[in-house]
């Protein structure tokens, strides 16, 4: 359940939409998947922490009531990290936000974000792979749930 507030300055911008896509994929990747994606890219460029990985709480809001009003329904542990690629002074900053307290994962997500902003094609292929794996997981779960579906078509009221 996500509540996203589009920034009017960048809403609809293709570069923003592309980055939103890979940030979503990176945030939802399973722990091992990010490590595998980074390993597949081989030697990573040198990077410095702008914000070392840190763990904190994020407030979760959702429309969970019947009336649809926003409700603060809990908090989640989130680890975040910001890296800056070295080599060029204006190097992009990569941001990583992941659920849980795995600092390596947050760093890996931040590195991949920085590489993707540079237009790294290998990283883009890894994103496609991760997205396909996530879609497969969702489809498998939906299929499992579908086996327990009950049809109420016989209970039509007279």
């Amino acid at each position, binding site marked *: 359940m996500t509540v996203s507030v589009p920034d009017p300055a960048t809403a609809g911008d293709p570069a923003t939409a592309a980055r939103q896509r890979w940030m979503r994929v990176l945030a939802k990747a399973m722990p091992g998947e990010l490590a595998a994606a980074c390993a597949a890219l081989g030697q990573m460029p040198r990077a*410095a922490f*702008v*914000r*070392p990985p*840190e763990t904190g709480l994020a407030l979760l809001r959702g429309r969970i009531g019947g009336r649809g009003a926003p409700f603060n329904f809990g908090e989640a542990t989130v680890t975040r990290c*910001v890296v*800056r690629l070295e080599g060029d*002074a204006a190097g*992009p900053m990569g941001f990583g936000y992941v659920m849980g307290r795995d600092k390596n994962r947050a760093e890996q997500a931040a590195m991949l974000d920085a590489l993707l902003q540079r237009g790294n094609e290998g990283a883009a292929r890894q994103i496609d792979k991760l997205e396909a794996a996530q879609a497969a997981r969702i489809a498998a779960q939906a299929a499992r749930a579908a086996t327990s579906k009950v049809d109420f078509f016989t209970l039509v009221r007279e």
Partner: protein
Amino acid sequence: MRAMEAGFADPVSDAQAAFRAVLDAMARPGRLAHFAAPAEVPPGLGRAAAALALTLVDMDTAVWLGPACAPAADWLRFHCSARLAASPAAARFAFATAGECPPLAQFDLGTNEYPDQSTTLVLEVPGLARGGALTLRGPGIETVEHVGIAGLPSGFWGQRDMLHELFPRGLDIVFVAGNTALALPRTTRVEG
């Protein structure tokens, strides 16, 4: 977004060390505090000023930046989640250089009920030294301390003296020069 300078490498320990340093400086006016972290400094702030910002500023403290410090605005927002104040009077913390410091009475001097809510001014000066021409007296100083503060505009000490009669309202000032800082709480009297 422009590539940003890093904050504290070890946020907890570095902020605690910087807090202790500025606390000692405030308790013992005339003694210099030294700051080794952060390793990278943003444009517009020296290392001591950057350390004070990372240690003391957060989303609950509005910050006013003088023109020379204004390039640090993005950095402050990123690392401190700070709000920028529109005027010196609305700021809990103000960062400025000595040459362009607004009249001291323009800052928030607190109220008689809550004198602690006054602005804390962090003023970047060209040089700080112990044993200079200024004589400090007051709480935290056994007899007298002598310091040198370079580059202050003429009339600065006159403006500060005018604030004494407002006590307990007033202005706490931290002078910073590169890696060093010297605190001058409102209770300290300056002669010379």
